């Protein structure tokens, strides 16, 4: 009956081998494939994924791996050379400036509430006070008597960094505010909790949440392009030194008309 154990091992081995060979068939002989690994900001990631999908349609010999991890992780991975391209949704700090940055587009940060929320406009001071904890109830802003469920991103997030820089302006975000670790999860809370407020990437705005106007300026691509909506941050591709040929091919695609059109369609601000 020792055969049973041996048989089991052989079974597992066969399954694994079959699986690996199955996958090989899909992507063709691995030696021909060019692989690009990209990691970093979770804000940039979905858009990079989309660009990669389209790019790989035209270049079937390319395999592009996109990971999250956060802007800081992306920068680190770049410094360590564990990825080809790092993604960041914030500007580089001084000790990171040795890296090469390419702005692929700009992204607004929108303050969002539930669609049923009757408020359409807030001043920058009001937004600051909400996230600072000074304003705790919607009735102080002209809506119903109900506690404000504010949501912020976590420390170390590029989006939060930009929010703190452009909105909070040295005022601290209150400790009692809920924290979520991605744009998507913040948006989920706003979309399901009628009394919630948070900030997300402009590119993620859709019918499920309502973007508030700040001091009368609505969060739209036009208002960012004409300079009236000021809560904007760059999406960066970061490389360690000049990018190699294969990587350059992808970056050029992203900066090309085709790439920028895709980004524009997603609600980002192109840099053409």
């Amino acid at each position: 009956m020792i055969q049973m154990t041996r048989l089991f091992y052989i079974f597992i081995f066969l399954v694994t081998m079959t699986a690996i060979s199955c996958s090989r068939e899909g992507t063709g002989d691995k030696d021909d494939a060019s692989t690009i690994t990209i990691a970093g900001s979770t804000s940039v990631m979905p858009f990079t994924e989309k660009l990669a999908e389209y790019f790989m349609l035209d270049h079937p010999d390319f395999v592009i791996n996109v990971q999250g991890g956060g802007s800081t992780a992306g920068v680190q991975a770049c410094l360590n050379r564990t990825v080809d391209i790092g993604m960041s949704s914030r500007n580089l700090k001084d000790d990171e400036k040795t890296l090469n940055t390419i702005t692929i587009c700009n992204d607004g940060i929108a303050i969002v509430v539930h669609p049923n929320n009757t408020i359409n406009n807030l001043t920058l001071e009001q937004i600051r006070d909400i996230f600072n904890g000074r304003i705790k109830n919607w009735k102080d802003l002209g809506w119903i008597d109900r506690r404000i469920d504010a949501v912020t991103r976590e420390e170390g997030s590029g989006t939060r960094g930009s929010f703190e820089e452009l909105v909070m302006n040295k005022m601290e975000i209150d400790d009692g505010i809920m924290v979520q670790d991605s744009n998507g999860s913040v948006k989920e809370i706003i979309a399901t909790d009628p009394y919630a407020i948070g900030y997300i990437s402009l590119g993620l705005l859709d019918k499920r949440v309502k973007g508030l106007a700040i001091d009368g300026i609505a969060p739209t691509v036009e208002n960012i392009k004409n300079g009236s909506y000021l809560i904007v941050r760059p999406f960066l591709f970061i490389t360690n030194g000049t990018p190699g040929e294969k990587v350059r091919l992808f970056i050029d695609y992203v900066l090309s008309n085709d790439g920028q059109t895709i980004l524009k369609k997603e609600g980002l601000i192109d840099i053409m």
Partner: protein
Amino acid sequence: MTVTALKKEQFVKFVLTVFALSSLLFLFLIFAFILIEGLPLFHKAGLKNIIFGLKWAPTKGLFGIFPMIISSFLVTFGALLIGGPMGLSCAVYLSEYSGKKMKMLLKPALELLAGIPSVVYGFLGVIYIVPLVRNFLGGSGFSLLATSIILGIMILPTIISISFDSIASVPKSFREGSLAMGATKWQTLYKVVIPAAKSGIMAGFILGMGRAIGETMAVIMIAGNALKIPTGILDPLRTLTGNIALELAYATGDHRQGLFSTGVVLLVIIMALNYIANFWIKKKRLN
């Protein structure tokens, strides 16, 4: 035995010894690296400032995890409050009241419950429990209450199975003696059987505690992850595990070390709980 057979035996013993030592090696590696990364900050920022500090703002040099220690314990006690009585009752039912058919139905059901991944629990908690709390009790729903409910359900299988083993192993003579003296089944239960199974039940509760305090995914989905000590059951909170999981991917330098320091504290608490539980289990066996 021939010489070659002897050599083969020696070789085998050697290999197996190495394998056995590997467990110790891994344990050592885990502790070593967590400590290497986590201890320096205790030195730099000060042990008191970290464990008793009230503010967590690593990018500004503040590493206070006291609110998270409190929150971890709050959430665990909440889970025990919800899962404990239910679990104990289930165990009692399984052991004393149910027939073979019920046993055959309940046991696999519990295995299934235990096998459901924590992310699924978290997901269902967000979709169903959170809105329930928000609409009927107030707040955002991401709260101590919601987290305790989900964690309570998650630790049910642990509490039930260990309590059941404990109660079932109380000798029949105890029960028969009590019944012979005219006590009802219920009186026998709470005056004789359960006290006799006390150590095992305690062990189950403590292991359940360990599981609740170590739970990560479900918690970060439901607890709201706010940095303040919750002032009521409807307030959001952040646990030690949540702190690590939320920020690990983004953290560098001191910030990352702060997360490892959080890990050190978590490890100490859970190891302590596990040893206490094992102690109670051994005590039960000795009895």
